[in-house]
């Protein structure tokens, strides 16, 4: 199936509408959206290719095919479900995809804030602060007099939000968190800064800088720890593939700015896959060899084909696939890089790795043990934890301190 997809992609690239259409027709027949995991995976790619074809010049004829295809297969436009906080909480825990990163990050953060009376936590996650409750809980139980936690979140200002999309505003979310922290006797403040990846979170960086300028006594390492928690968010910042002359490497620039703030710890959790290639076929191959994982994993824990959660889950994956395949330029936001490249970038930005403690590893393993049997944990290069599904790398977690 991968081959077929590749051929189809090639056809679209070369504006060969007839061929593309033929292949799409074939794929359509062998990959029903409710088939096994491989079929559903192919179907998602098919959908993405159709969407792409519909945009391409001479393949406009495919637009009608696309419409018909969707209609025939009862495919609703990927309507993004708006999650309530509770729904998101359960959704995020369906697989260890996110929980792995959360657990590892929390452990690293806890280790690094030991002794500080105030912690400025900057949360850059795609999961809307779902990591925070467990962090609060851990802080409350670990420290007898827990530090003040100042949580700053970057609120997306785009309209094209990547799923999961929240149904409530960040303020409401924050107030719930603050409430919860209070119930655990942890002092907490919540702050939302509208900032987005499209400018490399520059608004956020500026805010942080100004904050430091105004409160020099709070500048780390003096009294306040600065923790930057990046979870699946950094890969949205543009990389060299969309670079302009003005900013050759927004990612590196972002990392440098972060470094200049002298953070106490920076946690980088992201997906171990290369989706930045300019060439569609390359991207398609990489994506195909990565996104089979969520489809496969979902079978292990959500057998019910009609369940809402499964739909949401798969819709999210489909959204991402479509973004990778069908979108270009600024719209294509899913630009994950592999672990190796991120590690390299961090090193270039004058960070060095901080190891995860043994307790952390044990905790992560325990957490994974509670999930389905295919998830595993790998420790690479001593300081990097990698979540694996059936042996394949899925998500990596690393912690960095200024070098």
């Amino acid at each position, binding site marked *: 199936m991968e081959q077929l997809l590749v051929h189809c992609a090639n056809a679209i690239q070369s504006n060969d509408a007839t061929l593309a259409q033929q292949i799409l027709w074939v794929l359509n027949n062998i990959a029903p959206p409710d088939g096994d995991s491989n079929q559903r995976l192919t179907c998602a790619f098919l959908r993405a290719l159709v969407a792409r074809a519909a945009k391409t010049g001479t393949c406009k004829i495919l637009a009608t095919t696309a419409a018909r295809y969707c209609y025939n297969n009862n495919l609703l436009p990927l309507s993004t479900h708006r999650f309530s*906080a*509770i729904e*998101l*909480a*359960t959704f*995020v*825990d369906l697989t260890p995809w996110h*929980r792995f990163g*959360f657990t590892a990050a929390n452990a690293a953060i806890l280790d690094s804030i030991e002794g500080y*009376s*105030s912690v400025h936590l900057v949360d850059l996650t795609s999961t809307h602060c*779902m990591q*925070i*409750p*467990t962090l*609060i*809980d851990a802080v409350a139980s670990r420290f007898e007099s827990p*530090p*003040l936690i*100042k949580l700053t979140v970057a*609120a997306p200002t785009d309209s094209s939000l990547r799923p999961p999309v929240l149904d*409530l*505003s960040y*303020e*409401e*979310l*924050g*107030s*719930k968190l*603050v*409430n*919860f*922290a*209070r*119930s655990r*006797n*942890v*002092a*907490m*403040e*919540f*702050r*939302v*800064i*509208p900032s987005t990846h499209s400018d490399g979170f520059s*608004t956020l960086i*500026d*805010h942080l800088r*100004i*904050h430091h300028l*105004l*409160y020099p*006594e*709070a500048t780390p390492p003096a*009294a*306040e720890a600065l923790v930057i928690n990046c979870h699946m968010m950094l890969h949205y910042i543009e990389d060299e593939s969309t670079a302009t002359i003005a900013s050759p490497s927004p990612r590196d620039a972002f990392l440098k700015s972060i470094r200049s703030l002298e953070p106490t710890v920076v946690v980088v959790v992201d997906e171990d896959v290369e989706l930045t290639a300019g060439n569609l076929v390359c991207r398609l191959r990489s994506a195909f060899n990565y996104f089979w994982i969520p489809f496969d994993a979902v079978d292990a824990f959500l057998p019910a084909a009609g369940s809402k959660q499964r739909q949401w889950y798969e819709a999210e994956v489909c959204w991402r696939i479509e973004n990778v395949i069908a979108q270009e330029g600024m719209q294509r936001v899913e630009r994950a890089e592999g672990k190796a490249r991120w590690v390299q970038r961090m090193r270039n930005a004058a960070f060095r790795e901080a190891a995860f403690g043994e307790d952390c590893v044990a905790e992560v393993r325990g*957490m994974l*043990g*509670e999930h389905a*049997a295919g998830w595993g944990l790998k420790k690479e290069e001593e300081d990097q934890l990698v979540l694996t599904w059936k042996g394949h790398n899925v998500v990596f977690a690393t912690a960095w301190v200024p070098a």
Partner: protein
Amino acid sequence: MMMMKSFMFQQQQQQQDQENMSNLTTSASGEASVSSSGGRVDQNNYHPPPEIPPSNQPPPKKKRNMPGNPDPDSEVISLSPKTLMATNRFLCEICNKGFQRDQNLQLHRRGHNLPWKLKQRPKNEVVKKKVYVCPEPSCVHHDPSRALGDLTGIKKHFSRKHGEKKWKCDKCSKKYAVQSDWKAHSKTCGTREYRCDCGTLFSRRDSFITHRAFCDALAEESARAIPTATDPQMILPSTPSSSSHLQTIPQFNNQGTNNNNNNFLHYPFSSSSSQSLKKEDGSGSNNNNHHMMDNNGNFGLLLNNGNGSNSGSRELPPWLASCPPAGLRGVGPGPLHPHHHHNLSSSSPSSSSILSSNPANPSQLGPALPNFHPASGPHMSATALLQKAAQMGATTATTPGSKPAGLMLAGPTYPDRYVPNNNNAGFGFASSVSRDDVGTTNNNAGGGGGGGGGGGLFQEMMNYSLSAAAAGGAGFDDDGAMASFEDAFGGGGGGKAAAAAGGDGGGGGGNNEEGGMTRDFLGLRPLTHSDLLSLAGFGNCMNNDNAAEQQQQLQQQRHSSSSSTHHSHESQKQPWQGN
């Protein structure tokens, strides 16, 4: 543990013969098959009866020995591992067929049509209690004095200790040698460990915690928490370990629709307050408060009562809550409001909202009324105003034309004089329309619901807004009307507030009806309660006699006001866009 229970239970049956024992064995364990070391053996065609809980005991209670301490005169049986694990130990003498249990054998024997004599077991069969030793030499139960009384028991023991674990739980990765153990575990594995107040069960702690943090049940709980006194403190991050989450960090208590507050960051609440913006220390806020108090007479009183009533209520009109005077800080829900100082304007020019973990805050943070956030005076949001006005309207409706002194509204208790902070904003508007006398009369008239004072101003605001609306064209345009509002109110959040107040003004105006007198501004009759409520989108409201009349009259104004309301709502949803 089941293991022990089955042992002990089985030991009880020492005096009984083997047949009974096997019965009990079966019932106690409910196990259908035993895995032998040689490989899985299929179950017999015997289907065990439904498991009888071990507490069910046959009528004559048997004496139980301690497990592993058998009755001294029982017969010790030592079986080799193979025999022990063999599944067919009971042999039919006729056809030599093997059975796992004696019962099965008996059942089978009946099928042979034996002469009745042979059907029964020999009567004089000496029933000696048998105990078994574990064949494994290193095991403690290998010694006859530590033999176990039950065959099945010894089998299980042997498997568990010395056998291969062939059964694995698929949820966790625990492995078991004995199938019954495995089954028992799977039943409880992760099924029930954490329970949230809302009733949901979680098998994992992290998912439980995450859920709990966002669960509404938590919000309810804290809403009931009694707010404690707070000290005005500086919000500087360097504030050393604060004892507390009780810091009064004057901030916007933003939630949902209150985002418009952010937009008013630039608009100094009052001249003194702008200076106090930088450091939101108590003194700063006090300044604000005093400032307000000056203009506001009973504001303090207001706040008190308002505060007092706030704990349970969610309908706190925004201006009630804002900067409480220092003295009131300690008052109950005081902490609720104080944070309505302007945000650290230092931090960013654009909006950022800070929430503090103030005890009373959460009580307001229910999902139901997003607006009720205590906001500083001019920063009240449209919906809040509307709601307040609705309540004021309710006052009117219930006692039309009468002095609504001490009238309690469905919602919060309003203090005697309820004056929105806008009053104090001391802007051109207030001064020009500074009808203190109006205010006063209104106050007296308004009395209880506190609608009075507000009412007067409302009217004014309504007038202003209406005229502005007229000027700016129907449907308040953010640019047009807002700008004029801003000017008028010194920009203090007036925009939306005023727009809403325009609507509210009607209600307020309604309040002022005393003896049926309605103030007539610009030839417009104020909106009545029902008008207002329908404007605000509220459902049923009590109708005034004048309702219909006024409705017609105010059709036009309603349109403009409602569109302004819509605008306010919309803009509230997008806090980040400057309004």
